[in-house]
């Protein structure tokens, strides 16, 4: 894997605030991370992969560049969080489809993307 060892796999170290604590990613860093995430997930969609954690080998084979970019722009905890959320949202959508096929009526109101897991 000498080819990829030169590319960074984690975002640059965070800026340190005046009281010595690392500052959280700002708006532009967040946008960059989300962009990397969306590209990676688009690639996963094309390859038909839902869970990139359990199907790690397959995901690395199909979307290695996107995966590297994603990991380079997001903190590792964010990467795992987004990957897990993708699986959770997939299951949720499947359940909704199933319910719709069974003739369930949608109740008024919306389900936000974070409403089910209530992860931050």
């Amino acid at each position: 894997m000498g080819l990829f060892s030169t590319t960074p796999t984690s975002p640059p170290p965070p800026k340190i605030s005046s009281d010595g604590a690392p500052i959280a990613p700002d708006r532009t860093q967040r946008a960059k991370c989300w962009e990397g995430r969306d590209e990676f997930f688009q690639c996963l969609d094309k390859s038909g992969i839902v869970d990139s954690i359990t199907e790690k080998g397959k995901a690395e084979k199909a979307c290695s560049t996107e995966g590297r970019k994603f990991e380079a722009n997001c903190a590792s905890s964010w990467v795992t969080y987004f990957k897990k959320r993708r699986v959770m949202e997939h299951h949720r959508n499947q359940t909704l489809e199933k319910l719709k096929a069974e003739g369930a009526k949608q109740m008024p109101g919306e389900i936000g993307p974070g409403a089910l897991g209530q992860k931050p």
Partner: protein
Amino acid sequence: MTKRIIPSRRLLSTFSYYLQPSQPHALSSQYRPLSTITLVPLTKPRTTSPSCPSPSPSPSHQPHTISKRTYKTVQEQQSRYKSGPFSWGAGLLFLGAGAALIFFFRFEKDRVERERVANATKGVGRPKVGGEFELVDQKGRKFGSEDMRGRYSLVYFGFSHCPDICPEELDKMSQMIDLVTSSPRSQKNTLPPLLPIFITCDPARDTPAVLDAYLSEFHPSLVGLTGTWEQIKDVCKKYRVYFSTPPDVKKGQDYLVDHSIYFYLMDPEGDFVEAIGRQHSPEQAARIILDHVGDWKVGA
């Protein structure tokens, strides 16, 4: 029995037929020469005119026979008769009063419902959301629950290293604040403007300086609060906020905090009013806040 009743009825009907004075029939015309002779012997004998069929039209009785309403024309009287007791004015008044009543009852219903929601946490034996606390704001100054008194405040719990939901919600919060403060309804209000508060669930990483840098990207009026892990745990418990930060994190460790994501609207007495969730758009949330702020009465 029947034989006796039938002739008597026929007799009565003939009597009543003849006794009707307005009917100019043979009998009254027979009487007429007699009455004209006896009652008005000196005046010129009247000719029987169809317009005045009354048997004794004395001049003193004239005002009583005219009804109190006077109509200029026959057409007017006929139209009056046709429309009956209803008129356009009465109809409009009826509809207007009905619409006003419906509007009033709907408005009152909404207000009473809001009052019920707002008072659900007031009084004894109610579930208490919120309470006393003493924390530090993003400039390092002390900030406690006392500083929230006298104005409505919107409290949100989160942490700065939050991947996507907190920044989205904070952007929404900024929109809500702008919508509420720019609304003409809040300009009428005597209360100080809405106080937006962000309380971190991650005190280990969110020092005042970190919060200052983080919140500077959102609304300038936001107050960011932090403290020790115990203090934060205590506030979260009082606000019924669930969060899970490992209490013994190493420096530089990368982790996420799981927490409840609601905006808590608190009234000027520090009591919980309503929770605003992710399902509300900024416009809906601003309307909810403005409705509650509008209901507030000093000393109520």
